[in-house]
């Protein structure tokens, strides 16, 4: 096991253009499950590939287990990586796929069988060892890729969107399996995803990236409840945080905190909310509409409500947000600022 650290890590693909990764400083904890979260093109995969040794950084350092590894080839970094496409060797059987890292690392031949069987049983693919990758389903391929990654007991695991090729139902069970798997082996893991639900569910901590810059680095709770800026606030959460401009700040509140005024008996900010669309999702409603009256006339917002009351499109309701759930961001920098008193009418 090892700690991965990056210092001022930068990658510029084309001279004179904005970097794909800009001055990233982070440090994992021992055995941590760290998630890189960001939209496509945010530099999260480039960051992971630099840690793996598949891309050469333009500037900065990468440390694994306290040792600078910039000059080391991928195979000397004691890492394992699972690719988005799994990158199984199509001409080799599952057994040979899993044994390949052992062969390449010159592990003694007598140990191969035992180790492959150990990895295969850990992932429940012992029955598939003689098959070729093309004879496997998506979920089975993913497990083979994981087995190939763990078989030589790496000090760091790198996973590049390993669930994105699975269908929605399988993805959920595969996600749980991955979590259990990580708890059992306890290896430091870096996981790249664009799916905020995966990031929230799996990550011990989340690195939120956009345009190659780290916007927020914290636990899922911190990232969700105390977003560092408006990008993080709107990227996490579905539907995203409502943002309205008030004087020189942007005020944000989560759709689930925007509720009928009469149900809230605490310090709150009231709005008239005209509902334009009602989505019934079984366990909850998603209401979208606009604010009425005062300085926020016409501002579009979304509310997310539990069942228990019926709402009609076209009707206007008295809604409110508890004051403690309001987040304040600077209007020019979009960074989080202290809560402050504002006039609301």
């Amino acid at each position: 096991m090892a700690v991965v650290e990056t210092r001022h890590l930068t990658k510029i693909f084309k001279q004179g253009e904005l970097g794909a990764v800009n001055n990233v400083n982070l440090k994992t904890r021992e055995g941590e499950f760290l998630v890189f979260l960001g939209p496509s093109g945010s530099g999260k995969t480039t960051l992971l590939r630099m840690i793996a040794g598949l891309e050469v950084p333009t500037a900065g350092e990468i440390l694994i287990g306290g040792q600078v590894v910039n000059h080391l080839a991928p195979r000397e970094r004691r890492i394992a990586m699972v690719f988005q496409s799994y990158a199984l060797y199509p001409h080799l059987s599952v057994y040979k796929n899993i044994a390949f890292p052992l062969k390449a690392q010159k592990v003694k031949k007598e140990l191969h069988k035992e180790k492959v069987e150990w990895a295969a049983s850990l992932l429940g693919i012992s029955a598939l060892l003689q098959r070729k990758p093309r004879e496997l389903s998506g979920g089975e391929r993913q497990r083979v890729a994981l087995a190939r990654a763990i078989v030589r007991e790496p000090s760091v695991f790198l996973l590049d969107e390993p669930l994105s090729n699975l269908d929605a139902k399988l993805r959920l069970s595969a996600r749980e399996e991955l979590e259990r798997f990580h708890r059992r082996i306890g290896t430091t893991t870096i996981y790249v995803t664009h799916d905020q639900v995966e990031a929230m569910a799996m990550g011990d901590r989340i690195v939120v990236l956009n345009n190659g810059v780290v916007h927020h680095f914290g636990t899922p709770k911190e990232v969700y409840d105390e977003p560092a800026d408006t990008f993080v606030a709107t990227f996490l959460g579905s539907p995203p945080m409502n943002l309205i401009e008030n004087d020189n700040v942007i005020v944000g509140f989560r759709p689930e905190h925007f509720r009928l005024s009469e149900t809230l008996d605490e310090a709150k900010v009231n709005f008239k909310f005209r509902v334009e669309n009602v989505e019934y999702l079984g366990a909850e409603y998603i209401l979208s509409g606009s604010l009425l009256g005062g300085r926020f006339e016409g501002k579009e917002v979304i509310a997310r409500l539990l069942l228990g009351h019926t709402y009609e499109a076209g009707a206007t309701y008295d809604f409110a947000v508890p004051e403690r759930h309001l987040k304040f961001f600077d209007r020019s920098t979009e960074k989080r600022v202290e809560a402050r008193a504002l006039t609301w009418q």
Partner: protein
Amino acid sequence: MAIAGPKIRSIGAAQSPLLGAAMFSPAVLYLVLVIGAPFALAVFYAFSDARIGSTGLHFVGLENFRSILQSPSFRMALKNSVVFTVCAQIIVVVCSGALSIALEKPFRGRGLVRFLILLPWVAPVSLGSIGWKWILDSIYSVITWVLIWLHIYKPYSAPMWLGEPHLAMASVILVHCWRLIPFSTVVMLAGRTAIPKEIPEAAAIDGAGFWRTLFQINLPMMLPIINVAVLFGTIFTFTDMTVVYILTAGGPFDSTQTLPSLAFATGIQGSDLAAGAAISLFLVPVLVLIAYLMLRMAHRAEVV
């Protein structure tokens, strides 16, 4: 129904057997006239005593084959054909494999290098071969000139590239390789680029170095396309006579004579049509085998 009516009729027209036959006939005509008829004629001549300038034609059974099999030049040509084909294919596969690796990653001037490598394939065979004939000439050879200038050989003991049996064979093989490598390189390059880039990357992370990745990952994955390149190359080499004919005309002492050039020399230049036809028929079993292997591979590629 009003809409469906004409639609059905038009499908019927396309399926009419007459139209189908009409569309197909040029291809059949081409095969029959240009390939089928000469082939049938060759088979017919091989069992006859046809000669240029003689009007008489008699059926002689297997007589031609019997006399050919006893002739030392034929045995020599058969051996040479095999040596020529096998050596050329090995050199071509190794060189074009290395070239395809070198040309895969972008570098400054890659376009120009690719163009230069393709040039021997684009240039007419005869032109290229005549160029090589000068390069390897006994008096004017630029290679000999350089070797003498470097004091590796004395002027009077310089090698005769096309005049000594082993050197001549080597020269013919190398010139033929020069001609085939571009095609093979293009095929191999296509094979390499078809490998998803994550797979060699995964191998690099798994701990494989350059040679292990090459021999255990890249080459096995390219095997189907290498097979295609080798089978095509074998056909081109086994049936080729241009390079041999222009460089050495089979000499010295039949040492570079291959089956096609011997068939030409016997049948056309030597006026013995029947013997020439019989010699060229010996090419058929090899070519049939290759055609069978190619069809089988194409079939397998479709099924997978």
